[in-house]
């Protein structure tokens, strides 16, 4: 009996400890010695482990950039592959420090899931892929089609909206993961496959015959994808947000992984502020003042990350389009570092 009571008391006490333990995420990350990132289990160009188990992709490089800013070492990261369905729960429960996994920023997610977006690292939109044999030229011709979709995404909702607003009938086949949905489309279970257009470009390559399939021109939704964190830790939110802005600012100022050492000698006041030779911007984030230098040496600026993972010279072949800097007609814009 005494043992049972003791066990109950210990259990109750441990619940109490769980309640109390909520130090800042940055302190926790520093104590752990690594950033734990929620990652995409496999979307080429955004987050996918290669045959040696090294993760590559645009989202993956964002995670490395955060590690570089904190530890001056882009390899101090741990990637936790998450399905669409599990990702927000994993972030909210503290399993990962930051979720960078082509997740769409929406109002309901930010007001009910306890999460907050730090920015948009890729402006995307939902599209459709069909087999060329069907000779479909527009998504408006898809009345009566069967469509494969991944579960737990905004995609599922946009799909229903698109067919509802165009007053067309369709049949949906909802599968647990994007691999399963793509596989079902590839084996002919569906006439069309839908996801974000960046995902379509990547997924097409992993099909048995990529050239037999074509991506339709319509973009049926706005999909601002970006890194997100838990609510209630403004220091950590600021850090993730400003790592994103630093990557954009570096591109704007022409600072690259190749010329960063040269730029350190620059007299330009803007570049001096960005690279931390003047001001204490890094310290105000809880980092070293050379934080941007560490990021750029680790992963390069936004342009380098984009070109390396999804740009025209990669198999994915995406143009900058909306993701060009604001000064070049795109939507990517960073507030000034000053």
């Amino acid at each position: 009996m005494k043992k049972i009571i003791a066990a109950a008391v210990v259990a109750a006490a441990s619940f109490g400890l769980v309640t109390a333990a909520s130090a800042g995420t940055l302190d926790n990350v520093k104590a752990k010695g690594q950033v734990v990132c929620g990652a995409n289990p496999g979307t080429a160009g955004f987050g996918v482990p290669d045959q040696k188990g090294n993760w590559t992709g645009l989202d993956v490089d964002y995670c490395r950039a955060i590690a570089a800013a904190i530890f001056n070492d882009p390899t101090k990261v741990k990637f936790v592959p998450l399905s669409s369905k599990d990702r927000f729960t994993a972030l909210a429960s503290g399993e990962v420090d930051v979720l960078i996994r082509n997740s769409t920023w929406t109002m309901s997610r930010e007001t009910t899931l306890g999460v907050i977006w730090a920015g948009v690292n890729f402006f995307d939109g939902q599209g459709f892929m069909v087999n060329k044999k069907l000779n479909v030229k527009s998504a408006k011709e898809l009345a009566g089609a069967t469509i494969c979709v991944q579960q737990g995404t905004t995609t599922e909702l946009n799909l229903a909206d698109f067919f509802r607003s165009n007053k067309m009938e369709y049949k949906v086949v909802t599968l647990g993961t994007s691999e399963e949905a793509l596989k079902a489309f590839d084996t002919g279970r569906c006439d069309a496959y839908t996801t974000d257009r960046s995902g379509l470009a990547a997924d097409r390559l992993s099909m048995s015959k990529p050239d037999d399939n074509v991506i339709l021109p319509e973009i049926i939704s706005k999909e601002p994808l970006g890194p997100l964190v838990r609510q209630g830790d403004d220091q950590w939110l600021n850090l993730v947000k400003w790592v994103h802005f630093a990557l954009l600012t570096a591109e704007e100022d022409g600072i690259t992984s190749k010329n960063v050492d040269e730029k350190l000698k620059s007299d330009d006041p803007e570049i001096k502020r960005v690279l931390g030779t003047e001001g204490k911007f890094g310290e105000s984030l809880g980092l070293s003042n050379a934080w941007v230098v560490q990021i750029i040496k680790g992963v390069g600026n936004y342009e380098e990350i984009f070109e390396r993972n999804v740009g025209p010279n990669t198999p994915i072949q995406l143009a900058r389009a909306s993701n060009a800097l604001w000064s070049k007609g795109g939507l990517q814009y960073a507030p000034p570092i000053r």
Partner: protein
Amino acid sequence: MSVVNGGRPSEAKVVFYNDPRIRSLFFQLVLLALIVALFWFAYDNTVANLKKRNIAQGFGFWNVEAGFDISQTLISYSAASSYGRAFWVGLLNTLLVSGVSIVLATILGVVIGILRLSKNWLIAKLATVYVEIFRNVPLLLILYFWYRGVLGLLPEPKNSIIFPGHILLNTRGLLTPRPVLGDDFIYPFVAFVVMVLIAIGLSVRAKRVQESTGVRPKTGWLSFGLIVLVPSVIFILIGAPLSFDIPVQGRFNASGGMSLAPEFVSMVIGLTTYTAAFIAENVRAGILAISKGQTEAAQSLGLSHAQSIRLVIMPQALRVIVPLLNSEYLSLTKNSSLGVSIGYPDLVSVFTGTVLNQTGQAVEMVSVTMLVYLTLSLLTSGFMNWFNRRVALVER
């Protein structure tokens, strides 16, 4: 020492806190209070932490528009329906796939279980191979096998396999004409019900005659004629009020008619083949539990092999088999939650999958789903216990 109560020594007076009964009651109450406090604390802690993290709580989402579509719906449902409606759609899909699979798995399992004990070497070995294969491969692989490996190989809609009677088979499933009942269809239907009732009456009467005279009057052909011929004649006389909606090939797939989706078929075949292997073993165990003397006694009475199994062995074996079947049925129902991996919209896929993700309320979704499976399991157990009491031999 005074002697009272018929010579037994009176109980020594003890202080109440030394009374073992009061003591044990006290400690049990303390433990109970601690457990309640622990649960209350866990609940309160969850609520407080969810609130602190700005995560929505409660069941306010239940009547909110769902906004997504579901491939198989037994009740009317569209993207404009509520999350609550989606819950019922998912639950009914779970019940449908479990119910159909339980019936089929029981039939297949009993047959294979009996075949395993067959005296024919080849048949017995084939049944053994079946059991060993399906019992030792994970269910998920079996589902993938049927979904991708077998049904995935069907031709595209343009090259459908066409069966007589406008039945199409392709990667989208099996499409058949849908019967459209005319208003007058009620007459032959009523006739059918009445004839079935009359046939039951005849059989009851036949049993009574058998008990009093020992000879059972033949009713088979008469009942058959009543049930089949009478409604058919009425049906034809009033002008056959039945037409068919025939599937027509469209741009993507045939539309109209009825369709059986490959996801549902794969689930049923997968769950049936897998669970039947376990049921076969239960049946075999049940039969082997009956002493050989029973078979010999049955045979010495002149019963055929089939009769001795049906009338002597099975009624006794059921005592062993039914409780085991119960747990197979429970597993089958819970296993149906693997549906999401092959796109079957069961409760876990729709509710703990899509709805959870759209609302983000994991605690509520998972609690409700657990409660549903618990209820289903208790109902199944309750039914099987009732059934077991009914079939249990009354020992005289």
